[in-house]
């Protein structure tokens, strides 16, 4: 009999892959591709939810690929954190798949957009589930390459310009990651993360291990867009279609954050005083620098892009504080941020579709003409700024609470002030695009068809609903994050699950 983990753990990889292959076979059939893509994304979400509930009930699950015992084969492993991330990937995949049908356009569909979308999801899920450092590199590459293509798909000059910066810096990060991985193997003789967690402390070379930790911090840091490594993000994220921006904004940087959290709770915990202080400083810099960048922008999506960075700072702050409560808050914050940030991007795309521009100076009048969109924007924007009773409030609350408990007053002060500037720049969008009367005369665009509106709005409404739910029914969501944080702080569980599976 097949054991449950053996199926549950590979489904998040196989479902997107088979979906992508089916889409490849349906290359010339647009409508079918749209449908299959949406179904596949739903499948991924369901697979993620089943995995999550199973991990919740049975604890950490592991499956030895190829039936080779750890650490010799590759282990797929899902603790709560991984499972949560897979579910989030599923949610985002579904939202993007649906939204894309209206947003992405025929020519991109004909050049493999949906195929790439699902390969991207496969890479993302692989990164979340793998228990092997080199395998993590492989999934990162898959995710990166698919994202490279998606970001330049369409070939507009701005996409190419952004793309080249994105590609260059991402590849630089990959090189550092691969180099660091190679050195870890050279130093510890294994690649399995659970095995490494056991061997690294026994090496008795904290200086070397911490150096490797710094290399990982740089490599994952570039991908997570922390300060001062984030340049590729504001250069590129505002260039592709909104569906792609939204997916990237929600998911991709979080894979970097996931990896940071994973290695800095599991592997590199020998010199916490040193490493995590550095992380905390970086977190502060990331928040401040990102929010200042956002405040200087006058383009809907560029504001949002810089805010991604700023918000990454909060997640990294949770890691830097390094307590179960702080990491739990960071996990909650990741989920919140994925919903809120992606939703704002999705909204920006709909605005663009209706008004023809992302530039705030040319927008206006949405408050009067689009009541539903106004409400949806307010929910997402105020949540991002951390106002209660929305999800962002509880994320910041959790972080501040954990930080106070450790006496880290400075970083909390910074995080709260950054929250204020975040509010300010969200209101900037509001003031220009929504409240201000529509400037000048513009050619009247034909109203969107009903079906198009539904496709645009369904994901936005879903995400807004999730933001509200996370804000009002905090307990179950935060409890999940709390348990995930506790698991991360008990590496023994992880090691046992991986090394003793089967």
């Amino acid at each position: 009999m097949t054991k449950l983990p053996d199926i549950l753990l590979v489904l998040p990889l196989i479902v997107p892959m088979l979906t992508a292959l089916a889409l490849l076979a349906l290359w010339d059939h647009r409508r079918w591709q749209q449908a299959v893509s949406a179904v596949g994304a739903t499948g991924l979400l369901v697979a993620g939810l089943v995995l999550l509930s199973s991990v919740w009930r049975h604890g950490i699950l592991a499956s030895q690929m190829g039936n080779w015992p750890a650490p010799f084969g590759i282990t797929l492993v899902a603790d709560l954190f991984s499972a949560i991330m897979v579910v989030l990937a599923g949610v985002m995949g579904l939202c993007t798949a649906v939204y894309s049908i209206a947003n992405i356009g025929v020519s991109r569909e004909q050049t493999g957009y949906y195929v790439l979308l699902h390969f991207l999801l496969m890479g993302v899920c692989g990164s979340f589930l793998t228990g092997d450092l080199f395998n993590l590199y492989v999934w990162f590459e898959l995710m990166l390459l698919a994202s490279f293509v998606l970001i330049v798909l369409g070939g507009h000059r701005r996409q190419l310009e952004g793309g080249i910066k994105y590609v260059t810096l991402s590849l630089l990060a990959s090189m550092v990651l691969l180099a660091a991985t190679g050195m870890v193997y050279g130093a510890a003789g294994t690649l399995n993360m659970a095995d490494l967690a056991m061997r690294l402390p026994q090496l008795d070379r904290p200086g070397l291990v911490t150096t490797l930790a710094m290399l990982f911090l740089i490599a994952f840091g570039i991908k997570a867009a922390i300060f001062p490594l984030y340049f590729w993000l504001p250069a590129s994220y505002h260039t592709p279609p909104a569906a792609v921006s939204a997916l990237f904004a929600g998911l991709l940087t979080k894979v970097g954050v996931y990896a940071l959290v994973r290695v800095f709770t599991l592997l590199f915990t020998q010199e916490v005083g040193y490493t995590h202080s550095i992380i905390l400083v970086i977190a502060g810099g990331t928040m401040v620098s990102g929010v200042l960048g956002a405040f200087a922008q006058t383009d809907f999506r560029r504001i949002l892009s810089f805010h991604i960075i700023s918000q990454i700072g909060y997640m990294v702050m949770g890691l830097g504080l390094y307590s179960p409560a702080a990491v739990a808050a960071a996990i909650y914050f990741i989920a919140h941020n994925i919903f809120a940030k992606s939703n704002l991007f999705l909204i920006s795309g709909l605005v663009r579709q209706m008004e023809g521009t992302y530039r705030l100076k040319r927008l206006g009048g949405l408050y009067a003409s689009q009541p539903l969109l106004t409400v949806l924007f307010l929910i997402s924007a105020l949540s991002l700024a951390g106002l209660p009773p929305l999800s962002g409030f509880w994320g910041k609350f959790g972080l501040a609470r954990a930080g106070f408990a450790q006496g880290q007053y400075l970083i909390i002060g910074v995080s709260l002030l950054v929250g204020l500037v975040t509010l300010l720049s969200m209101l900037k969008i509001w003031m220009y695009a929504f409240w201000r009367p529509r400037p000048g005369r513009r050619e009247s665009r034909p109203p969107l068809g009903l079906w198009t509106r539904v496709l645009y709005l369904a994901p936005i409404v879903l995400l807004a609903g999730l933001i509200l739910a996370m804000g009002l029914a905090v307990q179950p969501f935060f409890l999940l994050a709390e348990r995930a944080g506790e698991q991360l702080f008990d590496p023994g569980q992880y090691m046992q699950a991986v090394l003793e599976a089967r």
Partner: protein
Amino acid sequence: MLVSILLAIGLAVVTPGLYRLLGRATGVLLGLASFGLGGYYLRYADGVAAGEIYRESVSWVPLFGVEFSAWMDGLSLVFVLIITGVGGLVFLYASRYMQEYDLQGRFFGYLMLFEAAMLGVALSGDVIALIVFWELTSISSFLLIGFDNDRPAARRAALQSLIITGGAGLALLAGVILLTLAGGSSSWGELLARGQTVRDSALYPAILVLVLIGAGAKSAQWPFHVWLPAAMEAPSPVSAYLHSAAMVKAGIYLLARVHPVLGGTDLWAWLVGTVGMITMAVGAWRALGQTDLKRMLAYSTVSVLGALVMLAGVGGEYGIRALIVYLVAHALYKSSLFLMAGTVDHEAGTRDIRLLRGLGREMPLTAAVGLLAGLSMAGIPLTFGFSGKELLLEAGLQASRGSWLFTVAAVLSSVSMVAVAAVCGLRLWWGERAQELPHTPHRAPLRLDLPPLILASAGALLGVWPALVDARLLGPAVGAVAGAAVPLELHVWPIVNLALALSAVALAGGAAVYFFLERARRWEHAAHGLLPGWLADWYPTVMHGLSDAAYVHTRWLQNGRLRSYVMICCIATVLLAGYTLIRKAEFGPIPLEMGVGANLWALIIVFTVCWVAILLVRQVLSIVVLLGGIGFSMALVFLLHGGIDLGITQVAVEALSVLLFVLVLYQLPQQVDVRVRLGRLGDVAVALAMGGLIAGALLAVVSQGPVSAVAPYYLDKAYPEAHGLNVVTVILLDFRALDTLGEITVLGVASLGVFALLRLEPRGRPRMQGDLPLSQGGLRSRILVTTCLYLLPLLLLLSLFLLLRGHEQPGGGFVAGLVGAMAFALYAVARDARQARAALRVVPRYLVGTGLLLAVGSGIFGVVAGQPFLTGLWAPGGSAILAHAGTPVLLDLGVYLLVIGSALTIFFDLVEMP
């Protein structure tokens, strides 16, 4: 009680829909609903007066100990009655006043949301839940201030108010979290019991300051007060409700609420008292300089709020009594004055007090409002305002700390109050009417006069009949703030004492100021003009500063130059990792003897020559050749160190790469180096540092010798369990098959990416095979063409050979695929892509799909057989061609097809696309 909050929120949510159904009746209906809520709360009055505290609680976030709970004591009761009572009247007023506005449904929705949030603030039994409602009041206030959103001033004022109150709300949040940490709970019940613990805690000063910032900004305390006068851009009902009666009192409520926990210390008295006193003075002084009726009222509100905060700071029986009574009195007269100002504005079309005179004849009822409320505001005996003012002065006189200071300030601000009251009660109505009013005023509709009249009359009524409320309602509130029962008995007729004398002084002074109002205004202006700009109006200064800082920061960091980005990333790497590496300098003995001697030296010389040459050469083609040189030396290094598969793969990849480079670089500028001189030294330094870091770290790693914990296992199990002799291939296809699955997917995606990049131009549909121009027949070298014709089958044969023996000998799907792809790629380059496509017979993209399908299928077999994914399943025995048939072989085949498919997708397109 919780139900009532939820009901109010629900009502707010459905209000826009309700408006669509009911139209203008909505306002009236909501007003009645508000009164209904008030009536419901009144039911608790008797119990509360008897000293009871009503509590309800539902667990909300047990993880943080946060409850959604209600707490009804005297203080809460007074507040909810003000909120619902004034709220109901404002709704009635607004139902008429807002008739000319668009989007009324939203207006009433926001107003109801505000009322609900305010009820939540006043009733919350949990500080965290209080914050939630607190910020909700800020948001609804934002939406209401900017309701007339077509006017830039309204939008700006709304933004300012939200930034200041919302920002201070963050300070409050921090303070409250500290409070819950110090007090061990977030519920009032627990906190009230642990006041001493909190006050003794080291966090106490921080808690106090943070809470004061939050409460102070909300209640327009100096220096945060600037948002309140600006908020007068809001429609008048909003000013009356939010900015005199309810929201600005939330800060007072909070200070009163935490008084039993945080109050009573010297720090509290001085800090809170001083802030209040400054605010009181600033508000009073600035009120005199205003010409806009609403702004004048707003500054006088600031002054009163300052007085209330000062009273909270002064504390003690007198202070708290005064606080409660003055608060209620002010809520009554000030909201009616704001509504009156709205009516005047509505009728006369202006709020400029220089124009507004002598309106009494046309608007008698409105004049009555002004007079009644003005009397109360001025503190004339037999009004409720008198009781408030008298208690204020009394509290100043009785204060245990800073008595004379507080008293003098209170008297001076009372002078200004009297003058403002005279403007509202006398000046507007008496005298000669100005001719140049925008509208000709006439009698206001009853619905605009009645609500303020009711409020003003209530003030008058309580003045002559204080027994109606003093012991029953206000007494318990005083008790709640003081933390112990305090008797409260108000008297109708003034008692002759020092406070009364001071009151008379204030009255006389006020009358004098009123008569010289023009001069006072000029003085105020002159004095204000003396202040430096950033002090007089700090908000725009801060905003501009922030904006400039953001701009400079972003211009400098995100400068658009990829070079600078790479540079910063490298510097960060070198600093972080480099410092960490040398910090402990754990290098073992450097192993000098391992490896191959002379050969390696030779290779390394080749490396060095190549890369130095690359730095110097500017011909792109030469660079490509040199890169090839490096690639082939890599292959040799691998071969020399036992990496046979690695070596041949590297050779194959290098060959394809060179082909690729030639195809592409062909179209790039042939000479490079535009910016040779650009910061070369810095670049060299950064590059060397980066190289040094990597070399150093690597040295530190290898200095301990090989430590592989897994290699022996692979060698031991390769043949018996994975049926292969070539251990590298076995690892790729079996031990770490998942890597391979991921890796070939990457390659497939890369080929799709190249396809998309080449085909998809902005605007216009992608170019597909059918509509390409006939391709420009390759390089057209006869020798090459002929060679390729023969090379194709030969290379294909070699490729199959490599594929089949991969499990035993050097080879395998990947290198075999590369060779196969090379065959067709050369063919395409030499002849043309169409013929190569014809020779291949299938669309390469389908090979990609098939290859991936085979690969993933080989894994799924394992799952079907009840094993983990990618488990190798082997056929028993073996066949003639393959020593063993098993799923890893299937994976190998998948790799083979995929590599051919991917490489050819790339090459064919590159050759085809001009």
